[in-house]
């Protein structure tokens, strides 16, 4: 009898643990995201000069590389300059107030995240990591929130269907 009871208890405990895991699993990525981005476990991200980025910060975290890569081809081959997603525009807002750069010190905007994520970027072997000395830095991005609205909409739709780390 005791053995049977023990087995039943163990089974119930296993079911409870499984249920708890299932319930938590949806929140674990969100929890991890919260720990990384809001509670100091992630990279230090210096506040940008502008008030608003060209798209949601969460979207930019995931997709900035695609925007930049798309824009670089448009700029080099088609001559489309001063587009919202241009590297120059990014650097204009995100250059550190201390070093004036996005990639000189370890706390600078680009390097801070990429060293945290263990990704080597070679953008700044060729590109200047500081904004043009003469250019006045924009207080607000001239095309804030305007960028690739189609992509942003698609991303919102996808992330609504499958919530997780953003």
């Amino acid at each position, binding site marked *: 009898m005791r053995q049977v009871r023990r087995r039943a208890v163990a089974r119930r405990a296993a079911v409870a643990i499984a249920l708890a895991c299932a319930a938590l699993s949806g929140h674990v990525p969100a929890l991890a995201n919260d720990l990384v981005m809001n509670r100091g476990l992630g990279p230090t991200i210096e506040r940008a000069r502008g008030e608003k980025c060209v798209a949601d910060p969460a979207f930019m975290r995931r*997709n900035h590389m*695609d925007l930049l890569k*798309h824009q*670089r*081809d*448009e700029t*080099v*081959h*088609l*001559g*489309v*300059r001063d587009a919202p997603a241009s590297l*120059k525009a990014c*650097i204009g807002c995100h250059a550190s107030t201390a070093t004036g750069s996005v990639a000189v010190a370890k706390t600078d905007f680009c390097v801070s995240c990429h060293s945290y994520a263990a990704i080597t970027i070679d953008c700044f*072997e*060729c*590109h*200047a990591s*500081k*904004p*043009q000395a003469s250019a006045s830095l924009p207080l607000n991005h001239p095309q804030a929130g305007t960028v690739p609205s189609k*992509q942003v909409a*698609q*991303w919102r739709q*996808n*992330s609504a269907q499958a919530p997780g780390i953003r």
Partner: protein
Amino acid sequence: MNPGRDSGARMALSGRRAFLGLAASAVGGVLLAPGIHLVEIAQAAVPGAATTGANPKVRWGLLIDTKKCATGCTDCVDACNSENGLSGLTGPTDAQWIRKVEIKEFGTGRTQSLPVMCQHCAEPPCVDVCPTGASFKRTDGIVLVDRHSCIGCRYCVMACPYKARSFVHEPLTNQKPDVPRGKGCVEGCTLCVHRVDKGQGPACVEACAKAGHQAMLFGDLNDPASAIWIRIREVSTMQLRADLKLDPGVRYEGLT
């Protein structure tokens, strides 16, 4: 979401759209009156193409008056160096986008001085030989290197009859925000493409005019109203190594 696949699909879509647009205009071209060319319709069918970025109707070019180009004057070279962040050194491993060439006639001893840079050929051999497509000609005739796909093989350096391309041998720092440059890539005169896209002329032309020499003229070789087009119609000009039939966009006046 898969951004790579998404952008690939978008590119394929835009390719299909471009093809359909062209096909539609081809049908339209058949129906339209003679004198209206298919090409014009195709260009008109792409809204925005002419307003931002390189305009396919334009062909940028230079006219250099060697009679006004003084021996020993390096205003254009200095302007190029400071605009594009070049060192200005002339060693075998230093990049030179424009250089002054002094030529002397053996019989009479007559000397002439002229700047030589990328000639922005209509049929650029550097583009023909490039294995990665990094060397390319923009729709407005400016020949460029896409450093993102340049592998530094230097075939273009060998192919260019004007010795207009340089290779960057050493790591660089303090590049200009408008002119990214880096080790391992080939580079050459861009006709100051970052300025041209803003509606300005190349730095060398501006410096030459500012110093009062007026030996360089920049403009659209396709526009009958442009100063360069009018001048080329009026006076005899020549292309360097015209025998190669590369149709350079840089022309020289007074060079004999």
